[in-house]
């Protein structure tokens, strides 16, 4: 039983910098919690507090119901994969992986057996007798993983454990981690920058920004009902498009046309914090656009408009179409920060227009440089308060059932 609980935890570094602010987060026993956020938002700091490598300035940290603020790392029964590997350079791969077991005075034969087993899973068998200095980055990262999994700790902490692997190995390791975690049923906190890892691996995702927890929930919930602009822009790839809008009566006036608010959305809007009037920022996910020619009953469910496709990227299974919409700039501190972090020009407004991205079905006959009739599914419209950045929509649930996209966000209009 190793549930992890942050109770109003704050970390203040010696120089006064608050890296984590009043964090309240619970990771149920056996769950895998994904921690995401821009660089420097305090993910590693949070992880290191769980490991006992950083003092907790305020609040309480509980593991398995016990307050562990003052407990030494070795008494927490935790295995950690460090962001920078932290392999022991003077030991062979075998000794690196067996070090923890050796300290725990496990018999040599058992250590050997466990190390061999882990090496097999991680495809490190032929490297067991080598030193870390002679391994590639990806191999080192796998040794770091191996060092964690040979033990059977009550908590796994992984700080971007797959960041240095190539695409194929990453997929392979991702499924392997998922399998190991489920088999061992070990409570895990997993820090990542990778959208796919975040959406597929975790039971729940926690999004952090500048030391503050933004939202926690299952991947589908963060994807479908982001609490604020930051989460909306952070979760999903390619990221959400944002346009300024105005609620007038029962429709939203957007630069791409007037969208009639579906009843479902209206109910959530009325239940939401802001009420149903005034200026808003509208969020439109790329995957909720479609080539209008491919949609049958388009008038009833969305808005149709024409745009010139500036750039078209074919992914084989789908197209990414980039186009400009004439609008004034949406400005929000959260979006600016997001753009700065992702380097995303797609959020940046240029010359009085907003760059938009749409994911279109592979059947579309779209051509680069041509005008195309596009359709947007209004059921998936997100609305945010331009001042606070908060979502104006109440969480779906109370009696209503919003069509929720699958975890991968791959669902197109049906």
């Amino acid at each position, binding site marked *: 039983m190793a549930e992890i609980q942050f109770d109003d935890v704050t970390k203040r570094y010696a120089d006064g910098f608050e890296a984590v602010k009043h964090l309240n987060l619970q990771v149920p026993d056996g769950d895998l919690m994904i921690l995401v956020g821009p660089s420097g938002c305090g993910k590693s700091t949070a992880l290191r507090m769980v*490991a*006992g*490598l950083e003092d907790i300035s305020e609040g309480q940290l509980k593991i398995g119901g016990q307050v562990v603020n003052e407990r*030494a*790392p*070795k008494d927490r029964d*935790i*295995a*950690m994969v*460090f*962001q*920078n*590997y*932290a*392999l*022991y*350079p*003077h030991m062979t791969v075998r000794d690196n992986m067996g*070090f*923890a077991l050796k*300290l*725990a005075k496990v018999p040599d034969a058992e250590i050997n057996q466990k190390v061999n087993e882990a090496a097999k899973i991680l495809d490190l068998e032929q490297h067991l007798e080598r*030193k*870390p*200095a*002679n*391994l*590639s*980055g*990806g191999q*080192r990262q796998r040794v770091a993983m191996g*060092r964690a999994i040979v*033990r059977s700790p009550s908590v796994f902490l992984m700080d971007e454990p797959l960041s*240095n692997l*190539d695409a194929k190995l990453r997929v392979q390791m991702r499924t392997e981690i998922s399998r190991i975690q489920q088999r061992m049923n070990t409570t895990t906190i997993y820090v990542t920058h990778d959208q796919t890892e975040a959406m597929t691996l975790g039971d729940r995702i926690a999004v952090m920004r500048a030391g503050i927890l933004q939202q926690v929930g299952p991947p589908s919930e963060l994807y479908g009902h982001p609490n604020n602009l930051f989460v909306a822009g952070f979760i999903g790839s390619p990221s959400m498009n944002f346009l300024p809008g105005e609620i007038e009566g029962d429709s939203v006036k957007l630069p791409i046309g007037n969208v009639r608010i579906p009843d479902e959305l209206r109910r959530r809007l009325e239940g939401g914090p802001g009420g149903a009037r005034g200026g808003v920022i509208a969020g439109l996910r790329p995957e909720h656009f479609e080539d209008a020619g491919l949609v049958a009953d388009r008038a009833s469910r969305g808005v149709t408009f024409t745009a010139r496709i500036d750039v078209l990227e074919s992914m084989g299974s789908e197209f990414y179409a980039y186009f400009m919409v004439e609008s004034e700039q949406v400005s929000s501190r959260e979006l600016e920060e997001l753009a700065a972090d992702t380097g995303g020009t797609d959020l940046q407004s240029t010359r009085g227009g907003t760059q938009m991205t749409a994911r279109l079905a592979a059947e579309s006959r779209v051509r680069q440089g041509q005008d195309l009739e596009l359709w947007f599914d209004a059921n998936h419209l997100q609305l945010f308060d331009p001042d606070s950045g908060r979502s104006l929509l109440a969480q779906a649930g109370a009696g209503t059932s919003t069509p929720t996209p699958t975890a991968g966000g791959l669902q197109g209009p049906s």
Partner: protein
Amino acid sequence: MSAVEGTGGAIRPAARGGDRSGAWNEHTKRLTGWSGALFVISVCSLIPVLWIVFLSLKTPASATDGSFIPHHWTLSNYSAIFSLGTFTAALRNSIGIGLISTALAVLLASSAAYAIARLDFPGKRAILAVSLAVAMFPQISLVGPLYNLWRQVGLYDTWPGLIIPYMTFALPLSIYTLSAFFRDIPWELEQAAQVDGATPFQAFTKVIVPLAAPGIVTTFIIVFIICWNDFVFAISLTSTSAAQTVPAAISSFSGVSQFTVPYGDIAAAAVVVTVPVMILVLIFQRRIVAGLTAGAVKG
């Protein structure tokens, strides 16, 4: 393995691999340049050594005959100096005083360097600067006062009388080299070890000490050689076999008469004190040079 990696689709070219064929010419040129330079340096530094070795193998009569290679080979010089009580006593003094001074200096310097590498405290830079300044201080200017002082307090011609100045002058250098070594140790490994279940003490002994060892050994050898070779303090602060070290003892070798210089004995003694140091350096240079910490951290 690397044969495959060189081609287009390689994910990560091996660090050492590189583009062999293109770099080859450049590489050869550099190699020849370095070999040439090394050859010149070796010849310049080895000829005097060879000369003294050959001198020590000449009979006393032919010592000054001007030939490089002895006409009459003999080991009598060696048996002569070892039968000399003063020389064996001096050897004992040199080894004892050298080891004790070095051990003390390295021990003290380790703690200082540890603090400099790990902690942030005001005056950190000042300490390094001052220690460097002390290292620059001309020793000869201290000899006079020390001589008088040691006579007064009874440290003249004793082991501590040499150990104290040796240690003092070795400290700045040790602090300097050790703090450079300690700075490069990936200290987060200590934390990795603690998460792996080590006590702070275990983390230190099983992870940090092995990583710090090359630095400490290197510093130890450098300091020991400095103490071993010192002449200024040894000649001024000692007078008898009680504390006289080898360099001082050699200078007081006397010939058969007042007017003959015992070249053979001096050369033999010089070889005896030089060779161990050379062997020491040759043995440990691999260890010193080996980049033991390479590859610990994502780079």
